[in-house]
Structure formats: C-alpha cells, structure tokens
C-alpha cells in the first residue's frame, strides 16, 4: 500500500477527482446558467449585470465561460467513462476468449480487431458519426467501436501468457470449468496492467471527444462542449484569448491527471513486485 502514496498518483488522482466532483455537482458550482446569454465577450473578472463576476469571461453569445466549463465537464466525464467501460466489456470478453482458446477464435477475433485498428481513429469516428448522426449515444458507440480492439489486444496477450502458467494447468487438471478459469483464475491476474490501461484509455477517449467537439462533430449546440468552445472561439482568439485558453486548460488538466494516475499506478505496481 505504501507504494501507492507516490506524488504522481496523488496529483493525478487529485486532478481527476476535482473534475469528477465538478461534473457531479455542476448545478451547485456554476455561478450562471451556461446557456443564458448575458454580456457578450466580457473579459475575465468583469462584473456581471445583476451581480456576480464573470471569472473567466464570456463568449461570443455572452454566456459565462466558467459555467460552461463546469457544465461541460459532465458530458466529457460521463461519455468518456461510459465509452471506456463498454469498450472494456467488449474487449475483455473477446480478449479472454481469444487468448485462452487460441486457434480459430483467436485468428478470427484478431483479424476483426486488426481491421478496426486499421482505421485512423478520427477517420473511424467521422465515418460512424456521419452515418449515424451526432448525438451522445453515437459518440459512445463510435468510441467503443474504436477502443475495444486495443483493449482486446492487451487482454488477449495477457491471457495467452497466463495460460502457460502452471496454476492454470492445475485448474484444468482438476476439471475446473472454462468460465471460472477465465474469470476467476486469469482475469484477476490481469487487473494490474488493465487498471493502468483504463486510466490511459480514459485519457485518449477524452482527447478524442474533445477533438470531435473541436471539429464540430460532437454534441450539437448550444450544449457546453469543451472542444466545441474552442472551435467557436477560434476566429476571435486573437483579440479574446480567454475564449479558447480556458477550455484547453480544462481538457489538458483532466487528461494530465489521468496520465499521471496511469504512470503512477504502473510504477507502484513495479515497485510492489520488486519489493515483496
């Protein structure tokens, strides 16, 4: 346990925790209604009509940027998490089967995974979203589709390796059912690298969702979307940098937190394996 009290883990968990809390308690935290137009293009720190301060300024349509950032945390956190979880469900199940049984199942599933992985990620998203239309659910579907193969590959390799270990042989010799071998003997021994990957994948997903928003393929307006905010504010960024800087900082800090968490967990795991 002491290995886990590293600065990288603490800082990472802190950053992620802050954004999760912001997403959860958005209505309580946001000073203004994120959709309400007030004073257009106010500077950060300017006073609002009717009391309060636009701490981070307002955008082209007069909406408070801080409130939009706070509310914008919700779709980012929710969609990233949901998408990564579904990708994991699909990827882990397929990976376990392919890694353990090998042969045709492995060849077939691996081929399918490689086909999907042949798409540059954003190209895949664009294809899916153009076909299905932009909406939160479709974003989740697109992300799941694109992430599951990578998870599959990792789990498959781990499962194929663990299969060689003697304790799996012992389970087979005892007549243990394949189901239990996969989920009770093999999977718990993969949680280490999978936890690390989960954090990283959340980060990649967040970046992609941000990029989709930036390209205008994410949530439709007027929903507060960090990437979308950068896209909207781009034209005026020269004169009004606050329009784009703050959403970029928001998304970067969240992903940074996830990356630090992943890195810290990985190192802690290594240290634990060495020390014990």
């Amino acid at each position: 346990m002491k290995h886990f009290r590293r600065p990288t883990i603490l800082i990472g968990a802190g950053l992620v925790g802050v954004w999760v809390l912001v997403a959860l308690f958005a209505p309580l935290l946001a000073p203004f209604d994120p959709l309400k137009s007030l004073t257009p293009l106010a500077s950060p720190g300017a006073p609002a009509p009717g009391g309060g301060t636009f701490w981070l300024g307002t955008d082209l349509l007069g909406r408070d940027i801080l409130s939009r950032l706070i509310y914008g945390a919700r779709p980012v956190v929710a969609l990233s998490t949901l998408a990564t979880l579904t990708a994991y469900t699909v990827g882990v199940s397929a990976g376990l089967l392919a890694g353990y049984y090998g042969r045709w199942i492995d060849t077939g599933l691996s081929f399918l995974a490689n086909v999907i992985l042949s798409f540059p990620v954003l190209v895949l998203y664009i294809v899916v979203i153009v076909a299905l239309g932009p909406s939160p659910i479709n974003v989740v579907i697109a992300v799941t589709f694109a992430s599951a193969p990578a998870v599959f590959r990792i789990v498959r390799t781990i499962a194929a390796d663990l299969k060689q270990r003697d304790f799996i042989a012992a389970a087979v010799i005892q007549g243990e059912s394949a189901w239990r071998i996969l989920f009770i003997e093999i999977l718990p021994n993969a949680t280490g690298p999978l936890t690390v990957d989960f954090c990283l994948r959340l980060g990649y997903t967040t970046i992609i969702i941000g990029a989709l928003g930036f390209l205008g393929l994410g949530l439709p307006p007027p929903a507060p979307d960090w990437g979308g905010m950068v896209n909207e504010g781009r034209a005026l960024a020269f004169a009004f940098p606050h329009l784009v800087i703050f959403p970029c900082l928001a998304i970067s800090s969240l992903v940074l937190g996830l990356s630090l968490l992943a890195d810290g967990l990985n190192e802690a795991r290594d240290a634990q394996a060495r020390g014990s």
Partner: protein
Amino acid sequence: MIKLTHALTGLGKRLGVMALTMLTVSLLVFLVLEVNVDEVAAKVLGQFSTAAQRHAWLLQNGYFDPVPIRYARWLWGFVTGNWGLSTYYHADVRDLILPRLAATGVLMGATLAVTIPLALGLGILAGMRQGSGVDRGVSVLAIVTTSIPEFASAVFLSAIFVFGLGWLPGVSTLSSGVTIKELVLPVTVLTLSSAGYIARMTRVSMVEVMASPYVRTARLKGASTLRIVFAHALRNALGAPVTVIMLQIPWLLSGVIVVEVFFAYPGFGTLLYQASVNSDIYLIEACAMIGVVAVVVSQLISDLINTWLNPRLVRAIRKAALQDPTVSVEASAG
C-alpha cells in the same frame, strides 16, 4: 536460398492478409455509409430535394439493385480509380484527393523527420541513465506533452508565437507553395503529441536491454558504456520503438486532421473535415479507404523493418510493444 523463398512466402502471406483486411474495411465502409439508400439520396441531392427527385436519382444510379451488386460495383469503381463525384466541390473525387494527399504527405514527412530522431534520442538517453534527472525529466515531459490534445497545444503555441511574439503565421494555407514558416507550428504540434509516447517506449526498451544478461557479459568483457550502447544495446532495443513508430502513424493521421483544420492547411485532413461537415459521402468513402491504406502499408513496412533487424525476436518484440500502452514492456501480469 531457402531463406529467400521463406521470406517471400512470408511476404506473400502478409500481402494476402493486407488484401483481406482492405476488403473487409471496404465492406464496412460501404455498409455503414451506403446501406441506407434514402440517406444517401438526401445527402447527395441536398436537404431540399423532393421525394420524387430522390427516387428518380436512386433509380438512375442503380441504388435499387441488391446490396451485393452495389457493393461489387462500388468496389470495382474504387479499384479502377473511379472514386465518384464530390457533392460539395462538384469535382472528381480523385482529382480532389491527390494534391491534398501530397500536402499531407509533406506535413507527415516533416513531422516524422523531426519526431523520430528527437524521440529516439531522448528515449535512448533516458534509458541509458535510468533513474537519473535526465530520465525523470524525459518522463515528465513525455507525460505532459501527450496529455495535451492537438488543438489545445495548437492554441497554446499560437498564443505565444503568433499572437504574443508574432514570429509565425497563424494559418498555413500554403498559398505560395510549401514554406518552412508555415510548416513550423503544425509540425511542432504534431511532434508534441507523438514524440512523448515514442520516447517512453524507447526508454523502456532501452532499460530492459541494458539490464539484460548479454549486456552484462559485454560489461564483464571490459566494454565501455559507449561500446555497449552502440554495438549491443541499440540493435536489440530499437525493435520495439520501430513497431511503436509505425503504430503511431494511425494516431498521427488523426492528429493531422485536427492540426490541418486548425491551421487551415490544405491537406487530406481538411478535405475529410469538409466532407464530413457537408455529408459528402463519396468523398468520405474515398478518404476513409485512403486512410486505411496508409495505415496498413505502414504496418507492412514496420513488419519488414523488424524482420530485417532481427528475425527471431520479431514476434517477442511485437508482442511486447503491442500489449501494454503504458510503456511497460513486460510479458506477464502477475
């Protein structure tokens, strides 16, 4: 002689798998985009077209034929270079794509030319001096840079170099051909997003190799660190990074789209972006296929390089590089 035929059959097998992959990809792309004929008609003719117009158009273009026939026709068209007409640009898709591809090629090439030496160099240095300040510094730098999305680093860099210092242009439209000045920011943004991962992968591979028994043997023969690195470590450590670099190409192609749109660079990315915004189906299809071809070809090149580096270790290295994105090249979980 036996080795040559062995290598050729290996190559043949890989090409076969490539072809099969492309076929499956084409099927997926076609099904996803063209299976719903009404949608296709609406997108091609525009929102304001009437039902009658759409029906007539669909009939005329053979959209009421069974799906397999349509797919075969489409595939044939693709293979023979007939990529359809862009609804937005009203031009031949092929004529649109090729010059854009060239421009993106320049951008990618410049990026790789900068990223690869930088990332490999930093990774090797960090791996040689494991645990030192250099090592920690490289790791932290890598984590931070890969955490910033491309559009965000584009924003930050523009704020400094375009708005703040005014050294570089804010857009890179290549209006007077390719210039270095216009390439600097896009290439920097792309380098920032990919170099970190490659550097860390290289570092891990280097650390593993430096801790290996044969490096120990070299040390016990009296070899200096320099000799160990150049004569022993590099050849064995570079297998994983090469794989990683090739794996980064799909990721780079995604980043290229964002960067091109941000800097208005007239490349493949902006074309695809315009196509997606305008639901320009045929253009999207062609771009998607091209994108996949690029990825598949880069995978093939990666395999070939690996085989040249060390035939026996190919499988082990590839396995290690692919399985764990957190850069820990370990083979077991327990």
